[in-house]
């Protein structure tokens, strides 16, 4: 009943036109039902009223005519025989007919014969009307005048007047019609309310779902389907559409999320600049580039966007609206962003201009790409390039420096005026300078190997004392030359390490050399070793020129030198400390530098993890002697090198040491000489024409005498592969150019002493 009432009210409002906007289907259907039912009822009612009035009139007319006829019959004798009383009695009988108001009988000559008048009504006319037989309706009454004819004899005329109650009839009819119409409409509305649910219920369900989707963006909602008619089809089509929208929305969201996360990973933000509205819209990634959480803040505030751009880059970054309007081009630009936390980011802005049909720019859209890493790399490359340039200059200088004394010494040696003492001095000069150049080149090669990852450690157990002794011996000449006082403090108990003795000793000697260099003459240098739970720490302390804070941070970098120290030092490539750092890191350790400031000395430390410490032994191993080995004159040596100078030099020095030396400049020549001379030791260059060192070695090992010979390979390649290759070709030793002659002499001495080829391949070779 409430819904009927609501429907009625809705219908009422509809009719009153109060709900001009958004009519529901339900109310529209109601309106249709009400209008059609109402119209049908109105038409039917009007037709029925018209018909009823017609019938009423006809009925009344015929009724009156019937009464007149009856009265005619009844009164005919009275008229015929002039019987007033009878006639009067006949008329008085009309008393029982309440509708009859008046009646009269006239004679044919027109005289009134008898009459009947109901009290309160008008009397009949004195003479009969000439309008016969047809009921005359005037207002509320109907009159009929008829002749009374009997047997062809006109006896008289009868007049009857009756109440014609048409208005009453109409009123009654209209009230009945109103009630019927009301009830019919009510019934129609109730019925249609019940029936239209079939149509409106799914529609309303659909409307509800559509509203919820609009508000909640929940595309998983569905309208329940019930019927299989057109509405059911519409509902299922709607649901299918929702499926489609849902899946597409999801796909779009996934794609967006993927794109956003990809762009986020690539540190790319996107922006759109609507030129017409002058509104900029940026995404979250771009806000993140700016170091700002909420992109809406950036969207809203153009001043803030400007503020976040590096002041020096503002001109570049602010490509103005007008320029873009004029040119239609947005050039790709690089600028810096200063984030709220103060950090700087380099970004590239790229964008494209969109035009409308008239060719007017309307939209700019593009990306902001974070290129900070590339920029930093670029700067680092520039810095590295600059340092390399400096290094090359330094290297040229360092390499050239020894040449002047060597040339002078050579001239002096050539001079016939030079006495023996002067010649000895010249030889010393040449030897020292060559040594210095060799050290320089060794360092360079080592650094190169470390940098390119080609340096491999050969770890073996070694006593700490051995290492220190070796390092001190290497550095001793410079320390003594500058009259420094060296103090060495080691733990009382012996410490055995598992390290590459050659490399670690090199690192330590570098530190000592460094300290000697950067300390004014007669300074103090202290080398100390301490062992704690974690580390073995070796420190070298000097009373030298010290380091500034900036220098400390860069002192271990490649090609760096303490600028202020250049004038007053012995020069150098600035690679010594870098080499130390590289070697120590290869051992898993770390280096450190400390200073109380310029002029107040510095301390360099090497920290090695305890893992490198094997044990602490109680007995002390004898320190390997570096005394000159005496050559065994019975030992014959063959030197083969296609570089005649290198071969001759080596042969000369070995001869001076007392060996019998033969020289060959090719592999084939070497083999011939060897077959005839049966040398005890062969020092063979690998890269020779006709027959290389490997083939030569194989041939020699096939000879009976050759099986016991000492074979030393000399190559420019120091990789483990090369060494393995040499070993498999039959070499006992593998030396990398440039060859330290002292090392060869030691090998030969050791071979001579052992009387065979059983020279330890792991022999520690201190010094470089």
């Amino acid at each position, binding site marked *: 009943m409430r819904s009927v009432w609501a429907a009625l009210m809705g219908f009422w409002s509809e009719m009153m036109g109060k709900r001009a906007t958004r009519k529901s289907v339900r109310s529209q259907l109601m309106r249709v039902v009400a209008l059609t039912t109402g119209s049908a009822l109105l038409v039917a009612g009007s037709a029925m009223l018209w018909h009823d009035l017609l019938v009423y009139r006809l009925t009344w007319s015929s009724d009156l005519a019937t009464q007149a006829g009856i009265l005619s019959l009844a009164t*005919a*004798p*009275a008229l*015929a*025989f*002039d*019987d007033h009383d*009878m006639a009067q009695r006949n008329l008085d009988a009309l008393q029982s007919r309440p509708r009859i108001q008046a009646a009269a009988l006239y004679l*044919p*000559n027109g005289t009134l014969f008898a009459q009947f008048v109901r009290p309160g009504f008008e009397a009949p006319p004195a003479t009969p009307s*000439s*309008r*016969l*037989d*047809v009921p005359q309706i005037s207002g509320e009454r109907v009159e009929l005048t008829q*002749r009374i004819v*009997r*047997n*062809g*004899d*006109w006896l008289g005329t009868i007049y009857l007047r009756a109440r014609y109650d048409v208005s009453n009839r109409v009123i009654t009819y209209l009230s009945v019609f109103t009630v019927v119409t009301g009830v019919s409409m009510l019934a129609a509305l109730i019925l249609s309310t019940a029936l239209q649910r079939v149509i409106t219920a799914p529609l309303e369900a659909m409307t509800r779902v559509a509203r919820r989707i609009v508000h909640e963006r929940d595309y998983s909602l569905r309208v329940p389907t019930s019927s299989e008619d057109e509405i059911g089809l519409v509902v299922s089509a709607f649901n299918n559409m929702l499926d489609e929208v849902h899946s597409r929305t999801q796909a779009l969201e996934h794609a967006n999320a993927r794109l956003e996360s990809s762009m986020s990973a690539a540190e790319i933000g996107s922006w759109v600049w609507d030129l017409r509205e002058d509104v900029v819209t940026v995404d979250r990634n771009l806000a993140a580039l700016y170091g700002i959480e909420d992109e809406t803040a950036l969207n809203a505030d153009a001043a803030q966007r400007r503020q976040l751009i590096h002041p020096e880059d503002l001109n570049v970054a602010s490509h103005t609206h007008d320029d873009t309007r004029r040119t239609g081009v947005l050039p790709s630009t690089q600028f810096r962003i200063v984030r709220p936390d103060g950090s700087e980011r380099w970004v590239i802005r790229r964008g494209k201009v969109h035009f409308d049909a008239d060719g007017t720019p309307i939209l700019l859209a593009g990306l902001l790409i974070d290129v900070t890493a590339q920029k930093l790399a670029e700067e680092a490359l520039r810095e590295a390039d600059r340092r390399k340039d400096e290094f090359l200059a330094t290297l040229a200088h360092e390499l050239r420096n020894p040449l002047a004394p060597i040339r002078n010494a050579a001239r002096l040696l050539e001079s016939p005026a030079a006495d023996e003492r002067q010649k000895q001095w010249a030889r010393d000069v040449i030897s020292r300078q060559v040594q210095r150049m060799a050290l320089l080149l060794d360092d360079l090669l080592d650094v190169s190997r470390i940098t390119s990852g080609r340096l491999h450690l050969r770890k073996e157990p070694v006593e700490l004392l051995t290492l220190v002794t070796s390092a001190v011996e290497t550095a001793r000449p410079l320390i003594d030359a500058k009259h420094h006082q060296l103090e060495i403090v080691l733990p009382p108990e012996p410490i055995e390490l598992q390290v590459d003795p050659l490399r670690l000793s090199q690192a330590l000697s570098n530190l000592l050399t460094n300290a000697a260099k950067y300390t004014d003459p007669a300074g103090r240098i202290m080398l100390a070793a301490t062992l704690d739970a974690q580390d073995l720490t070796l420190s070298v302390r000097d009373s030298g020129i010290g380091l500034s804070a900036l220098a400390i941070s860069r002192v271990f970098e490649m090609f760096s030198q303490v600028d202020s120290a250049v004038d007053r030092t012995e020069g150098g490539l600035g690679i010594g400390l870098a080499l130390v750092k590289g070697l120590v890191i290869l051992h898993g350790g770390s280096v450190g530098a400390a200073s109380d400031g310029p002029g107040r000395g510095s301390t360099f430390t090497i920290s090695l993890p305890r893992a490198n410490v094997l044990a602490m032994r109680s007995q002390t191993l004898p320190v390997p002697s570096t005394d000159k080995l005496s050559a065994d004159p019975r030992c014959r040596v063959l030197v083969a090198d296609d570089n005649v100078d290198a071969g001759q030099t080596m042969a000369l020095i070995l001869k001076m040491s007392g060996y019998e030396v033969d020289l060959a400049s090719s592999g084939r020549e070497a083999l011939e000489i060897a077959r005839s001379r049966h040398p005890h030791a062969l020092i063979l260059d690998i890269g020779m024409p006709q027959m290389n060192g490997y083939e030569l070695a194989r041939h020699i090992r096939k000879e009976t005498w050759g099986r016991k010979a000492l074979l030393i390979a000399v190559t420019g390649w120091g990789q483990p592969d090369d060494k393995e290759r040499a070993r498999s070709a039959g070499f006992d030793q593998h030396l990398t150019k440039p060859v330290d002659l002292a090392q060869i002499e030691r090998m030969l001495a050791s071979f001579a002493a052992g009387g065979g080829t059983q020279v330890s391949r792991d022999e520690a070779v201190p010094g470089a």
Partner: protein
Amino acid sequence: VRTLRAIVTLLLGAWALCLSPSLRGAPETYSADAVKAAFIYRFAGFVEWPDGALSAEHFTIAVLDDDELATQLEQLSRKGSIKKRPIQIHRLKSIRDLDDAQVLYLGPAHRGPLGALVANAAKRAVLIVTSEQSALDAGSMVNFMVVDQRVRFEISVDAAERSGLNVGSELLSVAIHVRGKRGAG
């Protein structure tokens, strides 16, 4: 239909107007004989004769001993018919002249007793109308009398039925006195 009816009504009205002057030509007040003649003329409409009595081509009204009335009747007979037959008025000299008539009026000036005349006539199916005191006793069927200066009549149903005539109830209702099974006697 209405138009047709209107036309018919118009035609009927016109016909009535054509007829009316001859009827209106009647004098304002009628003589007793004129009234009686009219009554006699009208009686035929309310009385039924046996089948055989109406076989003749004419409806005959016989009048004995009343020339004035006969004259009145003759005037009336010219204007119409009774029972779809033309009207003949027979002036009788004697009751024996009574031949094939449907109505017989016996004037008050007759000689001899009324009863004999009636008895003679009553053998036939003829409506006997008289105009004298106690005529019904003598066997008359309808007898005129003047009451309050108006012509009235009395009827003997028995007498009529004896001659095979049937007097209609309408006629009886306007009679001032009815003798017989339907009247007070």
